[in-house]
């Protein structure tokens, strides 16, 4: 495909573009063609999500940031994949968690990998912190939204740099904010109210983890796309640690569940 006219749309958007001399422009790939064409014509690659992740929760505690999510990848109403890692360490002081389209999350992590590598190549004692990456992602999401070709995710970005803890969210249309506790998807309705009641400054690691688990349990009970297999990630100044997946103890022997339609005549 002749790429002469559309070349100008590509270079500036690459994180490593400062490494190219001014007269070398990378070859246009066919995917870039569609993406850049969508600036002129309403071509959309992503009008509906296919494999999706449900809520991601995050909160700030005394040592840093805790972010948690389950490991389910739903295909519509089916729980298709049960070991999807929806959180990734971006650098050694920042973590990204995503709900929404899993393939778009993977594209974002690849983009961030290139950003971190390009930043590391400066090798000058400066590095990108969670605030920088949060804003970079906001730009990416908003610009994709403007081309009517969104990355179908709500992202949670958390990290610590120079003692300053950062926890923020970016949605698929570029809405972004920071807060002490954040949730996406169903978590907004089920988990945030719990956080508003029970979050406090300088929680310990145990208190923070227990609060997250409590919210995740509520989500497991009430969100049909959630499963009982979760991971909790801990981001501190020293590094990112994502736990192995584990299950929460849930109780299904409740009276109300035993004969749910006892009082509803005609239901089954």
């Amino acid at each position, binding site marked *: 495909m002749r790429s002469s006219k559309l070349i100008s749309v590509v270079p500036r958007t690459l994180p490593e573009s400062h490494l190219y001399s001014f007269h070398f422009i990378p070859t246009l790939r066919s995917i870039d063609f569609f993406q850049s064409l969508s600036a002129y014509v309403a071509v959309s690659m992503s009008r509906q999500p296919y494999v999706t992740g449900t809520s991601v929760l995050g909160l700030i505690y005394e040592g840093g940031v805790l972010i948690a999510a389950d490991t389910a990848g739903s295909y519509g109403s089916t729980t298709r994949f049960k070991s999807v890692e929806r959180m990734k360490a971006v650098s050694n002081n920042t973590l990204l968690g995503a709900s929404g389209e899993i393939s778009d999350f993977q594209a974002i992590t690849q983009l961030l990998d290139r950003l971190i590598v390009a930043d590391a190549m*400066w090798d000058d004692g*400066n590095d*990108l912190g969670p605030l920088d990456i949060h*804003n*970079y992602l906001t*730009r990416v999401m908003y610009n994709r939204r403007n081309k009517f070709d969104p990355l179908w995710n709500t992202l949670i970005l958390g990290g610590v740099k120079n003692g300053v803890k950062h926890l923020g969210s970016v949605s698929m249309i570029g809405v972004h904010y920071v807060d002490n506790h954040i949730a996406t998807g169903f978590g907004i309705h089920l988990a945030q109210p719990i956080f508003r009641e029970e979050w406090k400054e300088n929680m310990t690691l145990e208190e923070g983890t227990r609060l997250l688990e409590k919210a995740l349990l509520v989500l497991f009970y009430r969100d049909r796309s959630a499963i009982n297999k979760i991971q909790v990630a801990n981001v501190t100044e020293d590094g990112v640690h994502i736990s192995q997946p584990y299950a929460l103890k849930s109780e299904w022997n409740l009276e109300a569940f035993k004969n749910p339609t006892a009082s509803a005549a005609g239901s089954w």
Partner: protein
Amino acid sequence: MFRNQYDTDVTTWSPAGRLHQVEYAMEAVKQGSAAIGLRSKTHVVLAAVNKASSELSSHQKKLFKIDNHIGIAMAGLTADGRVLSRYMRSECINHKFVYESPLPVGRLVVQVADKAQVCTQRSWKRPYGVGLLVAGLDETGPHLYQNCPSGNYFEFHAFAIGSRSQAAKTYLERKFESFMDCSKEELVRHALHAVKESLQEEELSSANCGVAIVGVGEPFVILDSKTLQAYIESLEGAKDDQATKIEVEEERNPAVIERQDVSGGGGVGVGAEGEGPSDMET
């Protein structure tokens, strides 16, 4: 630097392995009026000698704010300098828009240097004829850099470029070891002393020099003439004690006419050659 048959094109090497056009561009920097920079652990100060082409005209603007945490002093073709400062401002503001944090000085300096290098390797371009002293603050502390038309950049504790900068450099070489722990006021006074060296015969005043400061917690600011005059007078204050001593001596020995200033050594550089911008050879 004599004319030779290899100096017409910037893309022609001489048999000695030199690009004469680039060296000529660096000569243009040496013709401009002096610009001086020095830094401490917390502040960076830039000073410039303001030369007006005639009594009727205003002087050339040589100190530019690039962003809240970066500023430059230039020597040479100030028109080229304005173009570079527009580029630097644009880079800073783009970085702030994407990352919500200030562009680290060192990265900006490298970008400018790479831009300058392009002009040394295209036959249809000419090198920028301006040298920049870039003063800035980032996470790794305060920094002072020099950008050359050759596309080289260097970091300095203190440096001077432009005409009669050797006198200023000599002063700085003598004193730079004490700069790290200087307060802001002491650093500005050192800068003004260095400017004095470059001015030599002229009287230092807020009309013929400019000073700018950036520091931890203090955005880049170019001092207004009132503040600057106050600093100059504080130099004079320290000088007056010396001056009266000298006058007394002169009365006794009228044949001895010595021009002293507080630094007590004039512009005679007995010390080692300053580290100027490296030639093509290195």
